[in-house]
C-alpha cells in the first residue's frame, strides 16, 4: 500500500460554505431590520407604504428565523459534514461517483427549497408554526433533501476505512435522525385542495392535530429542532475542530460518552417547558421543567470536555483568534444551557414566558455558541479547502471583538427588557388593581430595544468582516503547502 495521505474532495463542502456565508448575511440582515422596527416602528415602512406588506415586522419575522436556522445553520452543518465526514471516516468523496452526485444533488435541491421558502414566506404562505412554517409542498421537498443527506451520510459510512465512528459522527447521525423524526410528525397536515375536491389554494393545508395537542407536538418539535439543529451538530463541530486546531487530544472519552447518550435521552423530554402554565396536563409541564434542569449535566459534560481539552495550552487562546472563537462558543454554550434550565423552572417561567428574556436566551445561544462555532469551523476549513492561508488574523480578531460586544449588548438588554416587562405585567397596586396598562409595559422597553438593535447591527457588521476575510482567503491569500496544515491554521497578518 502506498504511504501517502488521502486526498479529500471538498467540492460539496465549498458549495455549502458559500450558502453559509450568504444566507448568514441575509438572515441576520432581516434580523437587524426587525430589531430596528421594534425600536423605531417607522422602519416598518422603510421601502414605502406600498411595499409595507413585505417589509413589516410580522411578515419578516418567520423569514428571519428560518433563514438563520435553515439557511445559515443548516448550510454550516452540511458544509462541515462534507468536510469532517470524509476525514474522520478516512474516505474521499472522489472515490464514489454516486456519493459525489448525491452531494451535488443535495446542494441543488437545497437551493430550490431555499428559494421557495423565501418567496412563500414573503407572500405570507405559512402554517404559523414556529420553524415549521412551510406548507406541504415545501415540506415534501425538505424531506427529499433530508433523505438525500441521509443517504450521503450512510453511503460514506458504508465505504469507510476507519471502522470506529469518531464522536463527531455520532452527533451528525443523531442530527439526521432527530430532525427526521421531529419534522415528519410535526408537519402532519392535510392539503385542503385535495380533501375538498379542488377548492381554494392548492398549497394550503390544515394541521392533523388541534389545539392543545397541536401545541404539544409543535413544542416537542420546536424545542428539539433547537436540540438537533443548534446543539447536536454544533457539538459535532467542536469535537472535531477544537482538537484539530489546538493539536490537543479530547480530554475524556468517557465524558463524551456520558454527554452524548445523556443528551440523547434527556433533551426530548424538555420540550414541555415551552408550555408551562398552558392547558397541557400539569405532569407534562413538570416533566419538561425537571428534565430541563437535568439537561445541564450532558450539556456541561460536552462543554467541560472541550474546555479541559485546552488544559495546559491556554496560551493558544490568547495567540489564536480561531481558538478564541471556539472557546467563547463553548463558554456561551455553558452559559446558555444554564440560563435555559433556569427559565424552565415554573416560578421563573411564570415571569419570563412571553417576554424578551426568552428572545435574549435564544440569541446568546445562537449568536454566541452556534454562529461562533460555525464561523470558527469555516475559518479552520478554509486553508485546507482552498490551500491558502487565512487572509487576515487581525481582521479575525476585530471581528471577534465586535461580535462579542454585539452579543453582550444583545442579551443584557433583553434580560432587562424581559424582566422589567414581566414584573410590570404582574404588578398590582394597593387596591389589587393592575398597576400598568399594557402599553406602559411596551413604552418602557424602547431604550432596551434600541440597545439590542445596536448589538445586532454590530454582530451583523462582523458577518461582513467574516465574509470579506473568507473571500480574500479564497481568492488572493498566500498559497500554503500540506505541511503547514497540520494543526494551527496558517494566518496572514
Amino acid at each position, binding site marked *: 500500500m502506498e504511504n501517502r495521505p488521502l486526498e479529500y474532495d471538498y467540492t460539496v463542502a465549498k458549495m455549502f460554505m458559500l450558502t453559509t456565508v450568504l444566507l448568514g448575511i441575509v438572515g441576520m440582515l432581516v434580523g437587524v431590520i426587525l430589531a430596528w422596527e*421594534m425600536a423605531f*416602528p417607522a422602519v*416598518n*415602512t422603510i421601502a414605502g*407604504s406600498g411595499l409595507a*406588506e413585505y417589509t413589516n415586522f*410580522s411578515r419578516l*419575522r418567520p423569514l428571519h428565523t428560518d433563514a438563520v436556522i435553515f439557511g445559515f445553520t443548516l448550510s454550516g452543518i452540511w458544509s462541515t459534514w462534507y468536510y469532517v465526514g470524509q476525514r474522520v471516516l478516512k474516505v474521499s468523496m472522489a472515490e464514489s461517483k454516486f456519493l459525489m452526485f448525491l452531494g451535488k444533488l443535495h446542494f441543488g435541491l437545497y437551493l430550490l427549497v431555499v428559494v421557495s421558502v423565501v418567496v412563500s414566506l414573503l407572500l*405570507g*404562505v*405559512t402554517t404559523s*408554526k414556529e420553524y415549521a412554517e412551510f406548507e406541504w409542498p415545501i415540506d415534501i421537498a425538505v424531506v427529499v433533501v433530508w433523505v438525500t443527506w441521509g443517504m450521503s451520510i*450512510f453511503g460514506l459510512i458504508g465505504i469507510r476505512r476507519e471502522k470506529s*465512528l469518531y464522536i463527531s459522527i455520532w452527533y451528525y*447521525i*443523531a442530527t439526521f*435522525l432527530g430532525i427526521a*423524526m421531529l419534522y415528519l*410528525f410535526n408537519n402532519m397536515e*392535510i392539503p*385542503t385542495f385535495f*380533501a*375538498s*375536491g379542488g*377548492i*381554494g*389554494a392548492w398549497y*394550503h393545508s*390544515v*394541521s392533523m392535530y*388541534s*389545539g*392543545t*395537542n397541536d*401545541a*404539544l407536538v409543535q413544542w*416537542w418539535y420546536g424545542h428539539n429542532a433547537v436540540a438537533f439543529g443548534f446543539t447536536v451538530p454544533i457539538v459535532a463541530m467542536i469535537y472535531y475542530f477544537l482538537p484539530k486546531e489546538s493539536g490537543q487530544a479530547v480530554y475524556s472519552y468517557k465524558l463524551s*460518552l456520558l454527554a452524548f*447518550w445523556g443528551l*440523547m*435521552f434527556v433533551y*426530548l423530554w424538555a*420540550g414541555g417547558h415551552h408550555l408551562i*402554565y*398552558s*392547558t397541557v396536563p400539569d405532569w*407534562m409541564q413538570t416533566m419538561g421543567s425537571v428534565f430541563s434542569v437535568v439537561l445541564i449535566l450532558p450539556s456541561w459534560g460536552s462543554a467541560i470536555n472541550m474546555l479541559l481539552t485546552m488544559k495546559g495550552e491556554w496560551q493558544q487562546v490568547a495567540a489564536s483568534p480561531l481558538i478564541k472563537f471556539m472557546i467563547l462558543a463553548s463558554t456561551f454554550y455553558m452559559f446558555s444551557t444554564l440560563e435555559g434550565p433556569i427559565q424552565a423552572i415554573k416560578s421563573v417561567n411564570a415571569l419570563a*414566558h*412571553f417576554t424578551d428574556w*426568552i*428572545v435574549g436566551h435564544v440569541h446568546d445561544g445562537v449568536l454566541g455558541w452556534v454562529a461562533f462555532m460555525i464561523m470558527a469551523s469555516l475559518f479552520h476549513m478554509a486553508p485546507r479547502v482552498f490551500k491558502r492561508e487565512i487572509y487576515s488574523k487581525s481582521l479575525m480578531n476585530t471581528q471577534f471583538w465586535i461580535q462579542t460586544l454585539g452579543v453582550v449588548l444583545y442579551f443584557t438588554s433583553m434580560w432587562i427588557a424581559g424582566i422589567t416587562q414581566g414584573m410590570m*405585567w*404582574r404588578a*398590582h397596586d394597593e387596591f389589587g*388593581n*393592575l398597576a400598568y396598562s*399594557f*402599553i406602559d409595559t*411596551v*413604552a418602557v422597553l424602547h431604550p432596551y430595544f434600541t440597545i439590542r438593535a445596536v448589538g445586532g447591527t454590530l454582530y451583523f457588521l462582523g458577518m461582513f468582516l467574516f465574509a470579506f476575510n473568507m473571500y480574500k482567503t479564497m481568492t488572493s491569500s498566500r498559497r500554503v503547502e500540506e505541511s503547514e496544515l497540520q494543526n494551527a491554521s496558517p494566518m496572514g497578518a
Partner: protein
Amino acid sequence: MFHWLEKHPFFFAVAVFVTIAFAGLIEILPNFAEASRPVIGTKPYSTLELAGRHVYIKNSCNACHSQLVRPFKSETDRYGHYSLSGEYAYDRPFLWGSKRTGPDLMRVGNYRTTDWHENHMKDPSGVVPGSIMPAYTWMFKNTADIDTAYAEQITVNKVFNTPYNQELPMADGTKATVKMAATLDEAHADALAEAKVIAADMKDQDVKDAVEAGQIPEIVALIAYLNSLK
C-alpha cells in the same frame, strides 16, 4: 457495548433513535385522546371567521400576540378567564404564540369592537399612543380568500368530524349551529352576508363599497375572526 456500537453504524443509529423517540411516546401520545374534547360553548369557525383566521396567520399576528391566558390573577384581570384546553378543540393550527410584544388576544372579542379594530389596524399608534405595532393598510385592499376557507371547512368536517350544521350546547343553555354551505357559491353568499354586518359598523368607504359590490376585503374577515375570540 459503546465500543461495539461505534463500530456498527446501523445498530448505533437504531440505539440513538430509540433513545430519542422514547420521550415523545411517553409524553405526547397519552394526551391525544383527552385534550381535544370541546368545552361547552366552543364552536367551530364560520367561513368568514376562518378566512379571517387565515389573514391572521398570513400576517403572522401570532409572532407578537399570544392566545393563551395563564392562570394568574394578573392575567385574568387583564384578559379574562384563563384558557381551558377544550376551548381550542377546533383550532388547527393552535395560535398560542410564544411572545407578547402586544397583548394577548384569546378573548379580544369581549372587549374590542369592529370600529376599534378598524381604526387600530389602520393606525395603531393613533388609537394607542406609543404603540409599536405597524399599520396593516393592505388588509383594506386585499381580498379575503373565501374559497380556501371553505375548502378547510369541508376538510375538517370530513376528516375530523368538526361539527358543522349541528346543534351545539352554549354556556347559557341555548343551542347554536355553525353553518357549512353545501356549495361554493352558497359559501360565498353566506360569507358576504356576514361581511355586510361587519362592514355596517365600519367607516372606510372603500371597504363598504367593496362589500356592497360583493367583494370581501381581508380586514372584514380579520375583524370577524377577532370578534369571534371570546
